[in-house]
């Protein structure tokens, strides 16, 4: 049903337009802040170690980020609908193995990638069905499927593993080659990112996801097909985790029953650092992707700076705290601006 409202003169009060621009800027600043931190961090590292941003170094940075970024995109989508998918690590592991097994038996790389995506999407369907049909807390359900998928994976895989020698050369090369300094994997990830972001911003069903996360009860009353949307989010998340599994295989040339273990907390961290609120309804996948890049870059920066690996865990933790604290302070600024603005528009209203 389309609306019959004719377009009219945009007669929004001028000061509210100005205020909106201000808000826009502050909002973008949240993502800009992550970029700034990233740039400063990489720059400082380069200063102290000139090898860091060599061609090889840049490629490594991008390659390191791709897998986490992919999973974070899907996770962000789920979190925006006020759900969460803790099973991504397990799903990544099992789809990587599925792809590897196919390749080992002489399968075609493209089929293998599709297979991984399919396996991921399948578990996405399971998660989505459990969460939306049963209307049960996503955290508990996906904690359950985290265990279940991990268990199935290790029963199925056993002590087998897929190593680089079992994979076609082209596939393994695909994992590290690229156009210039930009690896193929990064291009693929970027494409996925842009598509998902554009979808969420510009399609009704994408907007529905924000609505759903913002107020589920209202979404139902507004006729949003809640189940379908939740299901979509989970399937996309699963499929991206599956794709990430295939890329993992290409990148690391190795899968066993432990692949992807403990990945869920890293992904959740990335999404949170990227400013996607756990209460749903806000944040963007670009933010989540930036969060993922920031986290993986830290892991690249510390060894390059020669920081002993003893310190890495602690520094990672503190940086995560710093990132969310900075984000929070910015958000408080926005709230302040809103308050001032409310006062202004009130003057306008009763003038």
């Amino acid at each position, binding site marked *: 049903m389309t609306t019959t409202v004719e377009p009219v003169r945009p007669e929004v009060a001028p000061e509210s337009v100005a205020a909106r621009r201000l808000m826009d800027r502050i909002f973008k600043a949240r993502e800009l802040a992550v970029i700034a931190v990233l740039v400063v961090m990489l720059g400082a590292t380069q200063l102290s170690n000139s090898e860091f941003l060599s061609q090889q170094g840049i490629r490594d940075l991008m390659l390191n980020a791709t897998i986490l970024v992919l999973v974070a995109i899907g996770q962000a989508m789920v979190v925006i609908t006020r759900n969460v998918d803790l099973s991504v690590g397990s799903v990544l592991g099992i789809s990587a193995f599925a792809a590897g097994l196919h390749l080992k038996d002489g399968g075609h790389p493209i089929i293998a990638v599709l297979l991984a995506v399919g396996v991921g999407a399948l578990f996405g369907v399971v998660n989505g069905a*459990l969460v939306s049909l*049963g*209307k*049960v*807390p996503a*955290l*508990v*359900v996906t*904690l*359950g*499927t*985290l*265990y*279940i*998928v*991990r*268990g*199935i994976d*290790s*029963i199925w895989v056993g002590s087998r593993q897929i190593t680089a020698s079992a994979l076609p050369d082209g596939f393994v090369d695909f994992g590290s080659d690229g156009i210039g300094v930009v690896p193929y994997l990064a291009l693929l990830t970027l494409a996925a990112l842009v598509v998902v972001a554009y979808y969420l911003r510009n399609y009704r069903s994408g907007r529905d996801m924000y609505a759903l996360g913002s107020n589920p*009860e209202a979404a*139902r009353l507004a006729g949003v097909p809640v*189940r379908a949307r939740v299901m979509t989010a989970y399937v996309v998340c699963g499929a991206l985790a599956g794709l990430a599994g295939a890329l993992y295989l290409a990148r690391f040339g190795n899968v066993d029953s432990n692949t992807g273990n*403990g990945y869920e*907390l890293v992904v*959740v*961290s990335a999404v*949170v650092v990227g400013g996607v*609120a*756990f*209460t749903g309804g806000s944040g963007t996948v670009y933010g989540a992707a930036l969060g993922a890049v920031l986290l993986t870059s830290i892991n690249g920066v510390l060894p390059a700076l020669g920081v002993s690996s*003893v*310190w*890495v*865990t*602690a*520094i*990672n*933790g*503190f940086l*995560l*705290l710093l990132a*969310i*604290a900075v984000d*929070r*302070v910015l958000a*408080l600024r926005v709230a302040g601006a809103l308050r001032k603005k409310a006062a202004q528009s009130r003057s306008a209203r009763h003038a």
Partner: protein
Amino acid sequence: MPDPTVKSPVLSRLGGAVRWDTSVGVLLVVLLICSFSFVENFGNALNVSFLIGNTLPIALIALPMAMLVVSGEVDLSVASTAGLSSAVMGALWNAGMAIETIIPLCVLLGVVCGLVNGLLVTRLGLPSLAVTIGTLGAYRGIAQIVLGSDSVTDFPVQYLDFGAGRFGDTFLPYAVVPFVILLAIAVVVLHATRFGRSLFAVGASEEAARFAGVRVKRLKLAMFVSTGVISALTGVFWTLHYASARYDNATGLELSVIAAVLLGGIDFDGGKGTLGGAIAGVFLLGTMQNVMSLLNVSAQSQTVATGVLLVISVLAPRIGRRISQARARGRTAAPPLTAPST
């Protein structure tokens, strides 16, 4: 068709019939009875004492965790706090300090860890899930810095005995005594004091609680600090029980605790649940694992079983409710449609 009735009313109406925490308790009892009668080697005192001893760390942390989740927050850094406490204990012992001094220091450490979490959550208003994922890394990292790759094992024998020993030939480990005391305190605090009442209110609606004069921040801070303290004590217990202080002690314990607490019917959104249910959940998982090991079920299958149980724990009550609703609707729909009276 989707049942559009608002969720809460029905929940309360049928609440008496299918309370999940009671079901978990019943399930635990049934499992225990079956295991005692049918599982070889389960029933002897030694095995039961193993079972209790291995489950105690999870049970200990589950006490404050359940209350924290009731208040609408969560602490994922518990295992790292325990690890840090263990590492500090080892480092101080290596430095020649007396264990009677070390334990209070570890408690203090727990206070600090809890304060950091609590202050970040209450003062800066950050989401606890994010904060404690951060401190999960930070505390574990500090533990690694403090103790490095050392593994300290030479604690005094009487303390190690306390950690691992049991009363004579009974099935009761010594450490059960402090646990039972803590459990009693926690039950009273959560279910019979104004503090507990306020926790439920805060978890169900923080804003409404604040409007009713509940000191939300103070309450949450107190809960984070208690969680820190108990986690640190668990670290001490862990060290003595396994006679080994390492920085990576208790790694991953947070997920086990949360799984058990959720299984026991504590609602992750806050405001609902009972401690009895949480502890039943802890021991249900512990017993299941023990029994499955005795029956030679592989670790992988145990993982699957844990997951299935978790999923069932949230699905079962809802499906049960759905069925009884359908039945109720069937009853009311039975009389023939009456003609409009106008």
